């Protein structure tokens, strides 16, 4: 049973073709990674999956419905962490978690539980009481990821979740994602440039280039198909090196 189905999706901004026929499917308990160079169409694809922008053509289905027409109730089951997402600079970390919980939860008890989970997931401790304007990029990213996962979504969409993070923060974020998907059976779609990360956490990988998925498979399948020692070699063979 697929929770996310993307078929021949296209999107153009003026004269620029951002996505020209992307297709993939994601099942529950799966982490699907979209990998490709800058401008390949990763973020645009993820925005269409979350219903932020409308595709010009093709079909997107999330949890059995069109994300553009999704009810608020169904939208509670989806969570999105944008590539350059921040947090409100004038709110403290805990206030931010309370705000997100206030929007997602149906009751104050549920909201409290969400915030408790968020506190644990973020690992920010006492720093949660400080305003987010004083946080480092890594702290903001961990807080934003904690907010995205604490609502226990059935579909979580993560655009470059570890971009700009140092090694230890990136490792903590990756472990949080794996642990969440394994324990909840949720579907995760993430984009990344980091091939080590992709190999480490993804069940399946879609290689995207110039707005199209050019190949797809598990990291092991792709390495065998292209005779690469790792995904970096596969990526260069399929997508091409620096021109």
């Amino acid at each position: 049973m697929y929770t996310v189905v993307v078929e021949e999706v296209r999107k153009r901004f003026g004269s620029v073709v951002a996505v020209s026929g992307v297709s993939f499917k994601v099942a529950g308990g799966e982490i699907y990674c979209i990998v490709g160079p800058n401008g390949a169409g990763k973020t645009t694809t993820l925005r269409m999956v979350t219903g932020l922008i409308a595709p010009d053509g093709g079909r997107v289905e999330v949890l059995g419905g069109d994300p553009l027409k999704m009810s608020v109730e169904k939208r509670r089951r989806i969570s999105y962490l944008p590539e350059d997402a921040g947090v409100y600079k004038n709110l403290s970390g805990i206030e931010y978690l309370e705000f997100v919980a206030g929007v997602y939860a149906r009751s104050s008890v549920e909201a409290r539980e969400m915030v408790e989970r968020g506190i644990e997931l973020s690992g920010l401790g006492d720093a949660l009481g400080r305003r987010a304007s004083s946080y480092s990029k890594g702290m903001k990213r961990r807080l934003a990821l904690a907010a995205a996962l604490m609502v226990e979504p059935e579909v979580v969409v993560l655009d470059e979740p570890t971009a700009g993070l140092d090694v230890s923060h990136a490792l903590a974020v990756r472990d949080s994602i794996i642990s969440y998907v394994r324990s909840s059976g949720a579907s995760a779609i993430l984009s990344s440039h980091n091939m080590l990360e992709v190999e480490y956490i993804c069940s399946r990988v879609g290689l995207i280039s110039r707005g199209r998925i050019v190949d797809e498979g598990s990291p092991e399948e792709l390495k065998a198909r292209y005779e690469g020692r790792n995904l970096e070699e596969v990526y260069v063979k399929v997508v091409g090196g620096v021109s």
Partner: protein
Amino acid sequence: MRKALIVKEVKELLRDRYVLFNIIVMPVLMVFVLGGLTLAASQSGGGEEGDEGEAALVILDPGDRYASILAQTLGWKVFSSIEEALESSDIVVVIPEGFGDALESGRPAAIMVYARIDEPSLAEAFKPGDAIGFVEDVVRLVLASERGLDPAVVLNPVVVDNVYLYDGRVLSLADLGYMIGLPLLAGFVAFILGSVVAQVGAISIALERESRMVETILSMPVTRLEIALAKLASVTLIGFIAVASFEAGFVAYMYMALETAPPEAGGEALLGQIASGIVDYMSSRPGALGFLALTSVLAAVNMAILGLVVGVLFAGDIRGATTSTGLIVIIAAAPVFFEMFIPGGSAPAWLNALFHASPIYYPFMMMKAYTAGDYGTTAIYIGVEIIYLALASAIASRLMGSEAMLYGARRAPGSIIKPVMLDVWKKRGR
């Protein structure tokens, strides 16, 4: 509407230093700036109006020596009845019986001044100012010469009772005070509230963008309408803090105007009379305060929506938000200031038509019609303002639900022009 969204908006906005400056410091500064402008405009307006036509003199006691001196010195037409004099001139100075006796006994002598005005405005209120000044000067010089004094030490020789004739009604200066003052107050409140909420509205969008939260919030389980309404509610709420600051400043300014008001009909005196007029009117008609609140809310909500629209389209950051809304506010406020200080009907038809595009023009005009007792026109203005509100809401919620919210700032003129210019410059360099 989600409480969490409103709480977030209010906290986020009230902790921003630009917003705090806009809602606490700015309104108080504006009171003194606008007060000074009002005073300057009223004083200059009085001079111009007073020069326009000659006054008439009504002498009720033909045997009064001082009245005869006035008639000979001023050279105005002299009548024995007020009705006859008003047929000849718009300004009539009445010298009552006992005028000379009062002066001879060393007391200030009372005169009545009738002024026919075209509309309740500051300029019209000052219409009899010059005529009163001439009478005072003549009396002062005569008394000084008779008693061998320096004219400068003869203070306030006459006491003036102003009567205004407007639209078939007889008004005291206090009556005219509220008719001028309440629309002025409504205009100022609409301007302050409107400019603050427009700026705060645009800043609320800019804060989403600066915090890189636009995508996150748009992907949350809330409708675009809920996002728009939460912003509108919190921005309007914050706008009322600005009004509280404005009103504190206004009370302080009016208190100062009353305290410093000299008895002659100078600018400060007129402000004092306006203040008295407003206080008396509000005390006797509590509904007027409610009507002032209604006009303020309508202006605030309309300007908040305008601020949100400008924010979505142009505010990439807080500076962009304040710059873009600053320009919009000046354009929106111009008709109000024109109507405040320049007698109506003097603007060309095309300019009058343009005035009606401003959302803060209506609150001023509503109050003007309301205080003049023209309830039909008041109702029309309320209706138009509500239609304006509905249209603006529809546009704002459409924008909130479109890609403009995501990409608006990137497509703002500055963001488009810069890359294009850079491209041209690079090509020339090659």
